């Protein structure tokens, strides 16, 4: 499988990364090199093999359904580029 510029631009949009034509062209070459490298996996017979879902043989832990944290609105917005009274400010999304 190899990717063309059209695919690169579609993926870039999915990944929310602006790419100009030069970037997209170079990225297509690099992605094809990497995809060519991972193609080796086609040699492996994975029939009947379960995909790994947890690297350690352990049960995912449960915790009490209780409030353990909170009241930190100021801390949460402290690093935001634009805020107003503990809200994040973004460009208008609804007319």
């Amino acid at each position, binding site marked *: *499988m190899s*990717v063309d510029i059209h*695919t*690169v631009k579609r*993926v*870039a*949009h*999915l*990944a*929310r*990364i*602006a*790419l100009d034509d030069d970037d997209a062209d170079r*990225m297509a070459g*690099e*992605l094809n*090199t*990497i*995809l060519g*490298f*991972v*193609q*080796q*996996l086609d*040699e*492996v017979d*994975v029939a009947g*093999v*379960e*995909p*790994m*879902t947890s*690297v*350690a*043989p*352990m049960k*995912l*832990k449960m*915790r009490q359904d209780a409030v353990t944290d909170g009241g*930190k609105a100021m*801390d*949460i*917005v*402290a*690093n*935001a*580029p*634009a805020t107003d009274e503990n809200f*994040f400010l*973004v*460009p*208008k*999304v609804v007319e």
Partner: protein
Amino acid sequence: MTDLTALTIAEASNALKKRAFSARELTDAYLAAIEGANGDLNAYVAVTPDKARAMAEASDLRLARNEGRALEGIPLGIKDLFATEGVHTQACSHILHGFLPRYESTVTSNLWRDGAVMLGKLNMDEFAMGSSNETSWYGPVKNPWRAHGSNLDLVPGGSSGGSAAAVAARLCAGATATDTGGSIRQPAAFTGTVGIKPTYGRCSRWGIVAFASSLDQAGPIARDVRDAAILLKSMASSDEKDTTSADLAVPDYEAALGKSVKGMKIGIPREYRVEGMPDEIEALWQKGIAWLRDAGAEIDEISLPHTKYALPAYYIVAPAEASSNLARYDGVRYGLRVPGRDIIDMYEKTRAAGFGREVKRRVMIGTYVLSAGYYDAYYLKAQKVRTLIKRDFERVFADGVSAILTPATPSAAFGIADQDMAADPVKMYLNDIFTVTVNMAGLPGIAVPAGLDGRGLPLGLQLIGRPFEEETLFQTAHVIEQAAGRFSPERWW
């Protein structure tokens, strides 16, 4: 007085307890060393002298009352991937411009709880994506090692390049690091230092900037095996804030040092003899085998048949997880924002300006392999291959093998701005060929210096262990260290 920065953590701790010098003096010695070297080496991206001195003075008060804790007064460097409250934390990315966390990572909290002193934040590849520390927004780190008779600047490896360089150049007594595909062990091998990636789940990932969550693990880089054992004991814990952290007591790793390896089965995997590997690496491996055999270990040739598929599977799994983890950098909640004509345009411009080339490449690969129509062909397949890689290890461990000995890297440190690697991203990825299997299987692995090559550059060996048997790795690595000796660069900076 001798140069205080020459002391290991174990030596400095003893001297502090005997009041041979104060914690403040030790910290000042390191701050002076950083001041004198960082302009050349670029190992630190932020130095915190005021905080360091305040912590050292608090340690001196404790020491005066004979209440010193495990790392009382020991000055450490912290990889920029760990959230440190109120202190520069950017994963060496521009997209986290100006980010000052309002919380502290569990691993660094554990270190401060034990009395350690923070010197500052260490350089790294952007979001830990790289094997040379060249993808950092803050520029490359120079390896304190140079080849004989050469003034060519070499990379310290990556992604924990700042950690490894700072430890080797004595700009900290020890450092935190993280390892997703080899980012502790490869830089340790390139700088003549000891680095251990513990079992997945041994150190809490809470407060560590996420790259690939099923692979990321924190661990120390240190001057010697003992210091690595001391640091890991503090860093490791069971943590409610990380549901993948293991509910197991942390053993006294240092107690494993000096125990005999007599009768221990050491596996030598034939698949790690790769094409084009320099003779010196093969010779070093043979030397390691001989040292362990001389110490009474039983050497067994073993097979890990899916080894060669670990790196290609990694370059599906890690970018896929990264593309998801890095979705949070959108110009809304923290860091950089580049204005746009609407919110989507703002996201796209912010991420275009904030991420470097390697990070964009990996986010793009990850987005592609997870996109509709490709998920089964790439991601699901890679996760199945991962199961096979893990089974390879389980089979040899079931046969009684306690540890596996391999080279740590396929070469010694290479030059900064290496043209071959710049032209082909896969060439750079091949640096992790011996280390990445360990992350894919969630196992512990340690890199220990074992010698110098013909040009005088350090080379390392790797030991891979059973899950949560880090003690065996410390015990065995210590035998190698005793035989090989320790290695320090000659100062040129």
